[in-house]
């Protein structure tokens, strides 16, 4: 059960499923004075920046 939970949280993190929660945590710690991006804006921004460099190989 513990292993399954660890796998699930690994899968969420590696696929980027929990990226917004992580961003909120980081934002609250680093910039508590500013409002964070909304879920949709964050996801759009994240996708746009991820694909401007070599991300996949042969």
């Amino acid at each position, binding site marked *: 059960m513990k292993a399954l939970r660890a796998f699930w949280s690994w899968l969420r993190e590696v696929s980027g499923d929990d990226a917004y929660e992580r961003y909120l945590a*980081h*934002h609250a710690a680093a910039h508590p004075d500013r409002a964070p991006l909304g879920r949709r804006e964050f996801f759009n921004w994240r996708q746009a920046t991820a694909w401007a*460099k070599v991300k*996949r*190989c*042969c």
Partner: protein
Amino acid sequence: MAEWGKRIFWLGVAALGALAFGGIATARGEPINAWWLIAAAVCVYAIGFRVYGAWVATRVLLVDGRPTPAVRINDGRDFVPTNRWVVFGHHFAAIAGPGPLVGPTLAAQFGYLPGTLWILIGAVLGGCIQDMVILFCSTRRDGRSLGQMARDELGPVGGGAALVGTLMILVILISVLGLIIVNAMKHSPWATATVAATIPIAVLVGVYMRSIRPGRVLEGSAIGVALLLLAVWGGGWVDQHPTLRTWFDHGPLPIAYAIMVYGFAAAVLPVWLLLAPRDYLSTFMKLGTVALLAVAIIWLNPVLHMPALTPFVDGSGPIFAGKVFPFVFITIACGAISGFHALVSSGTTPKLLTDERDVHMIGYGSMMLESFVALMALIAACVLEPGVFFAINTAPGVVGEGAQAVATISSWGFPVALEQMQELARQMGEATLFGRTGGAPSLAVGMASIFSSAFGQGMLAVWYHFAIMFEAIFILTTLDAGTRVGRFMLQDFLGNFVPALGRTSWYPSVLLCSALVVGAWGYFLYIGVIDPAGGVNILWPLFGISNQILAAIALCVGTAILVKTGRERYFWVTGLPLAWLTAVTSTAAWQKVMSDDPRLGFFAGANDLAAKLAGGVLPPEKAAVAPQLIFNMRLDGWLTVLFVGLLWLILADTGRVCLRHWRRSSAAVPAGGRA
């Protein structure tokens, strides 16, 4: 006592590895099974990782616990300290592409032994070391890219060579991958319908993740994967339908044009619509299927029907020309050592590392796993009867069609019957399997027979098209991501001369640069399709040479950094693989340019065809395309010269930098003063 236990364990691993290697190398005449290869591989990887990899990390690179860029900068965007297993997953998903599946399949024409040896030895001493050293160097330099490091450490010449090399390899890679899926889809309504369905499925997933449930990656991917499996089944239904099947039944040229249009669209459209969702699907599909293949092979332990060595080691091979040295080392690039990995190991992964000591597990370990994938592909190819393997992988221009092909292949000592091929094609749900060159279809046949034996008989056609879909989806992902990256690189480069062209969101520049990139690979794809000898014969060696030269550039950067940072005693860690790659690529390039054999040498091939054309001995359909083929072979010859020129230029630059450093350090430190 624990120390003794450990020693005995590692002695056991070494003994088992030696035994397995001995068994593989001395088995002649009687077929061996897959466990021998897997046992040898696991032992070689264990020792390579635990002994050599760990030694290089701790004694040569001197990894320590200093804060990584992710920890120091931690901007929540690019630099994010991330769990090591998550970084491992990201890194492995990034480096594992179609290369390690295709290369070993083609190299099986030499038998299983040369490919196996090179995959194992090349990975532990070359590929893993390259990936780890570049990952380490980039981590120590705030995640700088390979091109930037080449410029910083070697100078503008090295930096320029790395940029040109990267762009060229992208173009060649995309064209050869495109050719491979064209060969899987030509006149196959089932495969074409299934692959075509992946595009609307990706768009649907993209819309879901952007608008319906923003950022829910796993939900979207689960829906997409379910739809993909449905598309495999749906393709079979289309294939049975009398009118629908004609919509998806096309010759190679229309499919090639469709792929070019697709590549252009993916480079120009917003990423959320097509590229990103397709990548999620392809990553899940890829990792899932590779894991399934590994489980099936280990469980089933299939017998390898391919001999250890075939007569084609002398250079007479039908799939591609050239002797086992140097061409097995060119054909299997990814899986043993791949220059492309240096692009991911620098720039992206270093910005996520939480602990520098993890370069060993992530850099060395991921490449080891990739090498294991290559070994799986080799096993899947060697499980086929050799006669069947050659019938699928040899172009009609080389062995003729149907009965003629069967007679020719049988005459080589690899018996195959026409009825056998027809029955196999019927089982796989295809009209014919003859001349489906490029490796993907024969891999799919191998995978289908393994999967159906392991997970249920009678589903061969579904498994075959599942395997085709699995290969096509991530070949297309490499194709569209590569076209987009090529567009960015070209814009960046042209921006040096015309600043407006460097603006990545200015539409005229976007359209122009995307069209230039698609035009470049589209040209090679077109030539590959019209070439009666199959095109793979020309394109794959060219791709291998360019990928190995990129690896050599990365190793040059690594060697220069080792020397400049006081690790010159250990320069051979990257210097030895560099020397080997230099020998291999230079020999291969020399033969491709200078050989008198028209199948091997580009210029000899062009001259031979020109003489035949002038003599009027070509049949009309060949004469029609001959001028284009002649031009292309000459172009490929000059490209090869350019690649090798780049390599030697950067080698000379590395030598200059290292010598200068040695001279300075010996002048600064009196004799005997340096330990």
